[in-house]
């Protein structure tokens, strides 16, 4: 998946589409299009959540290493 759309944007768009779709003034064709668009966006959002990369690193002198918490 490309990162060309931010999570915020995707969520905002998703909300907008839900609002639009809930109004009665859309014709069926447009509604179906909006619905598909919305489903695509929600899929994207979910993927973005899944694709977050778990990693805790420490950056010392430009070198990145896994971070292990030490006691004081």
């Amino acid at each position, binding site marked *: 998946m490309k990162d060309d759309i*931010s*999570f*915020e944007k995707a*969520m905002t768009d*998703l*909300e907008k*589409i*839900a609002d639009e*779709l*809930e109004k*009665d003034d*859309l014709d*069926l064709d447009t*509604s*179906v299009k909006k*619905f598909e668009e*919305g*489903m695509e966006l*929600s899929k994207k*959002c*979910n993927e*973005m*959540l*899944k694709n*977050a*990369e*778990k*990693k*805790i*690193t*420490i*950056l*010392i002198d430009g070198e*990145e290493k896994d*971070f292990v*918490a*030490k*006691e*004081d």
Partner: protein
Amino acid sequence: MDINPITVEELNKYIKNKIDSDEYLNNVYVKGEISNFKLHYTGHMYFTLKDEKSLIKCVMFKSYTGYLNFMPKDGMKVCVLGSVSVFERDGVYQIYVKAIKQDGIGSLYEEYEKLKAKLESEGLFAESHKKKIPMFPKTIGVLTSSTGAVIRDIINVSTRRNPNVRIRLIPVPVQGAGAEKEIAEGIEKMNKEKLADVLIIGRGGGSLEDLWPFNEELLARAIYESEIPIISAVGHETDFTIADFVADLRAPTPSAAAELAVPNISDVKYTIDLYNNRLKTALKKKVQLMQLRYEKCMTRRVFKEPLQKINEKYILIDNLVKNINTFITNKLNNARMSLSKNVTKLDALSPMKTIARGYAITEKDGKIIKKIEDLNIGDSINIRYIDGVAKANVTEK
């Protein structure tokens, strides 16, 4: 006078005991100005504390000087904490100093207020400059000590909210001289190399001096310049540093900062599901509505009995045909009647009828003779009777 004298040593010992047993003198907090400061090679410090009217000797042993976060010098206004005791050998009383605080706490506070006012007037705290914390940052950049509770709290809270969160720590000192410079450099590095989507700078609570790096102008400007949104988590609930005012968001504690930076993934998932359901329900409703409209439309007569209109036309045509038939028949009958009437009339006028009654018709050369003058003697004529023609000659007239 026959009183036994006591020794100097005994006197000094007596005085020392007197003084040492005085609770008040055991714990004094004195302010004054340092003079005659000497740092002995053994590590002990000797100086005099004075004000306009008086002075007192002070000594601070090496075991305590290690805790000083500044080097005392002549002319410095300080508060010293210690006990008063007697140095028996010299017969002097002095303060055995345990801690020194620059009497600058007052002035430190003033400095803080001054810098705060200055930066505020420059717009460094302006709400309009505050950047929005991203809703779902991929990488959380943390600037704090690599040891201690702060980074542990941040990691714990972050991973609890989102097990897949990515945290990138640049370890920096968070107290002591020069800490602000390293924190500022960390912010710059994060920005320059785009290492994070949101930054947390923080440390646990502490004294005003401990928090001081976060009150430095250098750090304040670095926070202001940062393109990555910064959450400050310096100290606890009640301690506000300059950094807190400049930061895009202030968290009361490092744990709270992590909560603000990392969305709870189950909440986010729930929100997405909610949108999903809204979409589905809305579309379903729309389709149902359309279905209803369609059905309502289809129950109208034109669709239900599509031949009706045509049948109606047929009836119309049939009627017309019937009308035409009647008309034609009438016309025919009339004609017939009129004909038979004429035939009867004609019949009545027929000469044959007259002949039948005994009359005869005279013809000459095929013409009917109506008058005698049309005949001449000797003419050959035909006399027509009902049942035949007789030939005759005119002999007389």
